[in-house]
Structures are given as C-alpha cells and as structure tokens.
C-alpha cells in the first residue's frame, strides 16, 4: 500500500500537469492569433491600407511607407520645423500639440487618402520594402507625382485639402 502522502503528491503533480497543459493550449492559441494578426497587418500594409498607421511612426516613416511627400505631411500637421522634428514619433507630436494621438493619425489618414485622390497615378500594386537609398527606389515610387507647390507662398495647392483639427 502507498503512503497517503505519496498519493497526495501524485495527485497534485497530475493536477499541476493538467494545469500546465491548459496553459500550453492557451499559449498555442495566442501564438496562432499573433501569427494571424501579423499576416493581416502585412496584407493591409501591402495594399496601402491607411489604417495601419501606428503611433511609433515618424512623419518620415509614414511618408516612406505610404508614398506621400514628407513636406506634404509636415504641412498637413502644421509642423513648422520638420528637420527638428524628424525623429519625433506621432505619439510625441500629439503630446506636443496637446491632442490625442488617434486624432493625429486620423488627420494623416485623411491627408493620405486626399493625396491619393488628387494624384490618382499612384500605384500600390507592387508592395515595397521601404527603400533606404534614393537610387534604389522602385518604379512605383518614381511615378508618384510631386504635389503642386506654389513658389510664391510655399504652400500646397488647395486641391490637396488640409483637414482641420
């Protein structure tokens, strides 16, 4: 006959193992969901979906990923000194402007969509890895026309549309 203490120990061990198997299943489901989310995010990015703009992005990164001129985005967000704020994330810009980051992101989303409407030659069919050097820019980027900049006032054409805050 086994000692009762030994039986209790075995029972506890079985219970712990069952609990651990439950945790394994739960983390496996979590991993599967993370992979799905990763795939969805990648697909959305490849189609140029503006809902993928994140608070960690800088204006430079947004311009790069969504193929919109950086000056245009800086102008849209009323950033007066884009060179100084080149490394500021949208999060930081929002706190500087004292407004929620989601609102700033929405403004950018509208601006990008407006830009695309105006410059319908934009082609998003060929997904890009963000190019790091000007010479390596793909043909898709090269065909993007620059926004019309009035030389006298240094402001963009009103057709671009600048959303109000």
């Amino acid at each position: 006959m086994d000692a009762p203490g030994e039986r209790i120990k075995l029972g506890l061990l079985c219970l712990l193992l069952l609990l651990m198997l439950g945790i394994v299943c739960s983390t496996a489901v979590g991993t599967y969901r993370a992979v799905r989310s990763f795939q969805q995010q990648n697909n959305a990015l490849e189609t140029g979906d503006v809902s993928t703009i994140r608070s960690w992005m800088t204006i430079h990164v947004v311009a790069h990923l969504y193929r919109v001129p950086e000056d245009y985005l800086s102008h849209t967000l009323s950033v007066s000194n884009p060179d100084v704020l080149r490394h500021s994330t949208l999060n930081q810009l929002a706190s500087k402007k004292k407004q929620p980051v989601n609102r700033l992101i929405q403004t950018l989303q509208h601006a990008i969509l407006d830009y695309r409407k105006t410059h319908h030659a934009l082609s998003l069919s060929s997904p890009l890895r963000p190019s790091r050097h000007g010479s390596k820019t793909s043909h898709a980027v090269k065909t993007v026309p620059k926004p019309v900049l009035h030389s006298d006032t240094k402001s963009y054409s009103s057709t671009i549309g600048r959303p109000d805050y």
Partner: protein
Amino acid sequence: MSAFFVDALQQYGYPVLWLVVFCAAAGAPISGSLLLFAAGAFAALDDFKIFILFPVALSAAVLGDNLGYFIGRRVGVALIGWLEKQKRFRFITPQAMERGRAYFRRRAGWTIFITRFLIVVLGGPVNIVAGLELYPYPNFLFWDISGQILSVIISLGLGFLFARSWEEAAAVFGSISSLALALLVALFLFTVLVRRIRQRRTARRASIVEVEVIEPLQPQHGPAKPNTGSMLIPD
C-alpha cells in the same frame, strides 16, 4: 511603457538602446528585445545603422548579464549564508544548497544559452542563480556571449526584415517564447510524474517479491492458517 521607450529611442538613439538593453539584461522588468525589434525596424527605415546597432546591443546585453551574475555571486551568496545561519527557512541548508549547485551545474550551460534568445523572461533570474551557485565565470561568459549573439541577430534581424509590422513580429516572437516556456515546464512535470509512477511500481514489485520469498520459508505447524501475506499485495 514600450511606447515611451520607442519614442525615446527615436529621439535619443543609440544611448537609449544601450541603457534599456543593459537594464533589461541585468534583470529589470522591461523588454529589451522589443526595443531591439524597434531598432531593427528603424534601421530598415534608414534612421539607424544596423552595423552600429549590433555591437551596441551585444555589449549592453552581455554587460547587463554580467552585472546580474556578479550581484548573485557577491550579494546572493552572502545573503544565502546569512539565511543559513539564521535557520529561518527549513529548506535552506548546506546539503540542500550543495544539491542545488550540483543540479544547476549539470544543466547550466544550456539553461544560460536558451534563456538568452528563446525564454528571455528567465534571463535575469538565471544570471543571478548562476552567480549564486558559483558557476565558473569563463563558462558563464562563453554561453552568455553565444546566446546573446543569437538573440541580437534574431531580434534586430526580424525587426529589420519586418520593419513595417515589427510590433506584430515581436508579438509572434513573444508568443513563441511563452509557448516554449510552457512546453518546457509541462515536459518537466511529465518527466517527474513518470519517474514517480515508475518508482511506485518498482516499490510494489519489490514488496510482492519480498512476500513471495518470505512465505515459503515460514514453517507450517498444525492446521493451515489463512494466508495473511496476500493482504500486503495491493490491487
């Protein structure tokens, strides 16, 4: 918290990366690998140089691990010695410590190596335990540097490759890490359970054999008595 560090990384660059990775490796409850993913992504987006990121991250991680090791070696050993003298905890005895030391030394190399890149969450505690258990420093350094090279390559590389969705890539990596940890614990519990069941069976067989050996040796005088020995045999 992570948003704060990512903002700081963009704003102040390499020093922030070094500091955060160092603190995370030393055992602070912050995610150094998440920041490495971000740094890799920013390198792909032309904000950092990947060949500078690599030595910066590697030096920070290795030095942080060493700090944890020496904290364990200097402070931990003294603390355990004091606890042994106090006799406040029954399980902290010289024998138990020696058993623990021997157990850790058998598996320390792989433990240190795996906790650098796969089960990152245990990296800090393992450094302290390695110091506490007086694991030889050259061996610790070898396994630590090997694991950290792999860790930095994986984190920076995946961040660089999936620059546009580095947050999701980091989440996938984190989930895989949690899954590996859960599987490892489940496997350990399973092994212990199987060992216990085997020990139990062996003990039962031994008791049966003992009864069978003893019974024929017993002299049978007078009328036959009922076999009480069979009562010992469990179902």
